[in-house]
């Protein structure tokens, strides 16, 4: 399986957002000079707190919201001037479970395909429904389905017209662990067929699990766009925690050169180091500990997650 941004960077751009702004009539600036370049075949995760502008950005790209200024191009087609060509390439799974309650699964998925200008193709609809485990429910009315199944129907609708770019707006909202894992699997399978996936999420683990690149948006501005692995390497912090045999009253003077913190009860010593810096001097620390007569019975290391990085970035932006 191909992971990381190296794969994506070699691919041409499928979506280019330039200086996109959206100001509502109330004066609220939901999007502020957004610039984004998404490569074909990558999985891009857009992270941001509530009200950051994630859904507005997706809506502006898909044509649901009219941008105040700026341009969006999908595979070179401007979403305003060449809206037919641009929109035909996009599939959208909205955040809310908005379905026609009285339609059958088959009918609503077929309707979506027609709406996007594709001739009927029952074999393709069959394939989509089977891949989403909806085949047994194809003649059921949507109102009789569970929340998770309704989410699958929305995904099936988005895939019905064979899009090249798929937007998943918080796909894991309100779904159980099993469905979430199924969805991750589906997204990876889609990527292997050349579909570009752009997802917004609150679940950092989702971005951490799937994304090639991560974008962070806050207050309508893109704070950062970075390869996920590079981001974690660049901004990640590592900690080495030592469980001491004898509690200490204070950090020994001989260890002053290291960034050490002693727990309140004096039984744990934590060494924090930055993965950006040169190789941490762990061997030197061990040597100094021995010299200072500090014995430890256990040790563990931990690394800051994407969630920690995200929280720090949003705090800094605020």
């Amino acid at each position, binding site marked *: 399986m191909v992971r990381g941004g190296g794969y994506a960077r070699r691919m041409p751009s499928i979506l280019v957002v330039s200086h996109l702004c959206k100001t509502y009539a109330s004066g609220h600036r939901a999007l502020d000079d957004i610039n984004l370049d998404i490569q074909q075949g990558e999985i891009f995760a857009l992270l941001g707190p509530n009200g950051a502008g994630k859904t507005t950005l997706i809506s502006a790209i898909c044509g649901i919201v009219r941008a105040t200024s700026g341009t969006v191009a999908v595979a070179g087609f401007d979403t305003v001037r060449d809206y037919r060509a641009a929109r035909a390439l996009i599939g*959208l799974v909205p955040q809310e479970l908005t379905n026609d309650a009285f339609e059958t699964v088959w009918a609503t998925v077929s309707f979506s395909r027609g709406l996007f*200008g594709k001739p009927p193709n029952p074999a393709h609809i069959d394939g989509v429904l089977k891949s989403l485990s909806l085949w047994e429910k194809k003649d059921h009315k949507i109102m009789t389905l569970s929340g998770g199944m309704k989410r699958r129907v929305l995904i099936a609708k988005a895939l019905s017209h064979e899009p090249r770019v798929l937007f998943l707006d918080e796909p894991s909202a309100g779904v159980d662990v099993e469905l979430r894992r199924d969805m991750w699997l589906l997204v990876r399978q889609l990527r292997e067929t050349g579909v570009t996936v752009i997802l917004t999420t609150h679940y950092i683990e989702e971005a951490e699990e799937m994304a090639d690149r991560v974008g962070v948006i806050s207050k309508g501005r893109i704070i950062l766009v970075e390869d996920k692995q590079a981001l974690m390497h660049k901004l990640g912090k590592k900690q080495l925690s030592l469980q001491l045999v004898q509690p200490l009253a204070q950090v020994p003077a001989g260890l002053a050169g290291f960034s050490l913190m002693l727990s309140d009860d004096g039984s744990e010593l934590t060494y924090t180091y930055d993965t950006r810096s040169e190789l941490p001097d762990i061997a030197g620390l061990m040597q100094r500990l021995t010299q200072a007569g500090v014995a430890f019975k256990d040790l563990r290391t931990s690394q800051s997650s994407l969630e920690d990085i995200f929280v720090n970035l949003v705090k800094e932006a605020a």
Partner: protein
Amino acid sequence: MNFHAIRAIYGFEMARTRRTLMQSIVSPVISTSLYFVVFGAAIGSRIPEIGGVSYGAFIVPGLVMLALLTQSISYASFGIYFPRFVGTIYELLSAPVSYVEILIGYVGAAATKSIVLGSSSWRRPGCSCPCASSIRCGCCCSWC
């Protein structure tokens, strides 16, 4: 022109009509038929013919057109507004369709339904009406 989209919208609306036949077609036909009974039988029997045209025969086209126009506007506006109300309009807005194509789909389906409704309400020639009115009304024709 995105003909597949027009066909999809038209088919979607007509499927909704088939699903809701009672409220889409039968209910307006009964409602119009009751107008015929009230105006035709109750009032019409007391009004003499003018120029060889009975009052009942005079009001039938008007009542049929009243039902047809009311329902055609209702069908089309409901079809367009309901997706907005429940949120499924996102799909229409993000689809590669123009406003004209959307309108052709919805209004075309509404017009078709209205014609079916008007035809159902219209009297059938040669049918004898069992009610006391001087016209052969739609509700009676359903027994013909």
